[in-house]
């Protein structure tokens, strides 16, 4: 229960933030950190808890983003109604990818590559089809009212992304404490033994990818509302997939707070390098890559793991 209280206190504190801080820069930083946390939470459910490393989570993100944007642009549907629709679409793509790859027993590197290939197929399709606006992308019509999921200030967006992140936290907490979560981690640690004990590994993994993809699609729908624009590269490009996996790896795989720790650390690092080296293209991703190699080499259990180790050493 301690974890649950910590989650609620943390989210409560962030919810009070707009009352004290009016700086758009600070609020934007908090929003982007929570947004990165959400993507990380989505990836962490499948990879951290389920052991299935996806390199193509952009497939779910982009589907959520396009589902929401296309519905608004082509059919004039209210953006709030688009959000659940986007989640369902993303989850459906997750079910498709998962059903195909898990049915044929793809594991490890093969699963990573096949998810990447799916994301690329979606990117090329979005680039060539009229419905998604082709290479030009889709511009969401400007409405500037809370009823249309477009807020005047940053505070509104902060509450929305906070609610989504809270959902991600609760899902992670549930995985730590439920029977289903135990099945999922059993499949991660040893699929054959789990199956021998009667766990339906295929079903468990499929459910995990559906949850993960739905959460990722929510991130995509939020992205569209916040930036009001989406194109094939932003939606399905490798940058989103990398952002989703980097946070949990830096923060600690398969933990409740890992994605948040990682996202915050990376945002901090990003701001730091921007101050030191300016806004030169490529610098931040170059450093992210170096961080990824360093984390895998020296801290495979992430910052969270380091804290735990230090806490265990302290008398």
């Amino acid at each position: 229960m301690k974890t649950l209280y910590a989650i609620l206190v943390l989210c409560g504190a962030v919810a009070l933030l707009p009352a004290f801080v009016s700086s758009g820069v600070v609020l934007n930083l908090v929003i982007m950190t929570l947004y990165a946390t959400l993507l990380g939470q989505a990836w962490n459910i499948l990879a951290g808890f389920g052991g299935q490393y996806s390199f193509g989570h952009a497939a779910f993100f982009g589907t959520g983003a396009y589902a929401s944007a296309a519905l608004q642009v082509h059919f004039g549907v209210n953006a709030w109604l688009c959000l659940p629709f986007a989640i369902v679409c993303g989850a459906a793509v997750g079910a498709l990818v998962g059903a195909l790859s898990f049915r044929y027993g793809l594991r490890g590197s093969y699963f990573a590559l096949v998810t990447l290939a799916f994301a690329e197929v979606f990117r090329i399709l979005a680039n060539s089809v009229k419905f998604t606006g082709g290479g030009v992308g889709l511009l969401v019509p400007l409405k500037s009212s809370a009823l249309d999921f477009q807020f005047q200030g940053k505070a509104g967006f902060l509450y929305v992304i906070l609610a989504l992140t809270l959902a991600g936290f609760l899902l992670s907490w549930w995985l730590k404490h439920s029977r289903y979560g135990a099945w999922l981690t059993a499949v991660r640690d040893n699929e054959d033994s789990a199956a021998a004990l009667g766990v339906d590994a295929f079903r468990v993994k499929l459910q995990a990818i559906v949850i993960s993809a739905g959460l990722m699609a929510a991130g995509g729908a939020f992205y569209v509302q916040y930036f009001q624009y989406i194109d094939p590269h932003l939606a399905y490009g490798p940058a989103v997939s990398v952002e989703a996996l980097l946070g949990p790896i830096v923060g600690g795989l398969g933990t409740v707070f890992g994605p948040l720790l990682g996202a915050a650390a990376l945002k901090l690092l990003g701001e730091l390098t921007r101050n030191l080296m300016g806004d030169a293209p490529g610098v931040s991703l170059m450093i992210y890559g170096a961080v990824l190699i360093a984390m895998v080499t020296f801290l495979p259990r992430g910052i969270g793991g380091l804290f735990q180790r230090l806490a265990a050493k302290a008398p």
Partner: protein
Amino acid sequence: MLELSILFPSILNGLTTGAVYALIALGLTLIYGVLHIINFAHGALLMIALYGVFFLNAKLGLDPYAALPVMVPGMFALGYALQRFVIGRASHGKDENILLATLGLTLVLENFALYAWRSDTRTIETPYTFSTVDVAGAMISTPKVVAFFGALAATAILLAFIARSDLGRAIRAVARERQGAKLVGIDVEHVFAMSFGIGLACLGAAACFLLPAYYVNPQVGNGFVLIAFTIVVLGGMGSFAGALLGGFIIGVVESVGGLWLGESLGQIGIFVIFIAILLFRPQGIFGART
């Protein structure tokens, strides 16, 4: 429908591209066969090799083909060092870690290129860039013909080396039975690094053959990385003959697919093959199911 007069040159073009693809895939399949790792950074390293050829030409006026004796040993040394000091240390015995480490390497290389050389697409001019050769009525550009025979020659040298030399024997021994190779006194870590180096040397050669008819920019490796993986899984992970055949198949599919569906949708054919092979026949054409 498609006229034979369009289809035939398109197939020939596909075969020339396919030979270079095969050379790139050979490097990847060698690394996979020996180390059992998927080198996700293969495309980014090809990009680095292409920039190497480009700058040798731009700064020193070196002809791309004359750059072969520089690029092949250069890429070999880079590969040896990378495996020894970066990738080998990150693995901790888990496949996923290597995949993540090589993904990190890809990010570093691609964005370093973006930072240092900007996103401009660069090409080189050689006296033979626009010349063509008449092959049974189809006009094929000279650099592509050179690339075809050059890639085949490089492949032949590599296969002879693996089959005949002592190091080649050691590499095959490690690929087949790591523990056993260690027991008979083979320095496995050294063989790993040598294999990685040879895999990248293939990229050095491929870059020299590619650039006269191709271009380079920081993202150029992205296109190649999935193509190389497709070829490798199509031919069977670790199979040299499979990589060679797979290279030709993919080269032709891409060329003819582009003719039918247009440049951007034509690529989809490759990814669909990739997904289908991974799903239905992950052992590939020549690979044996383990």
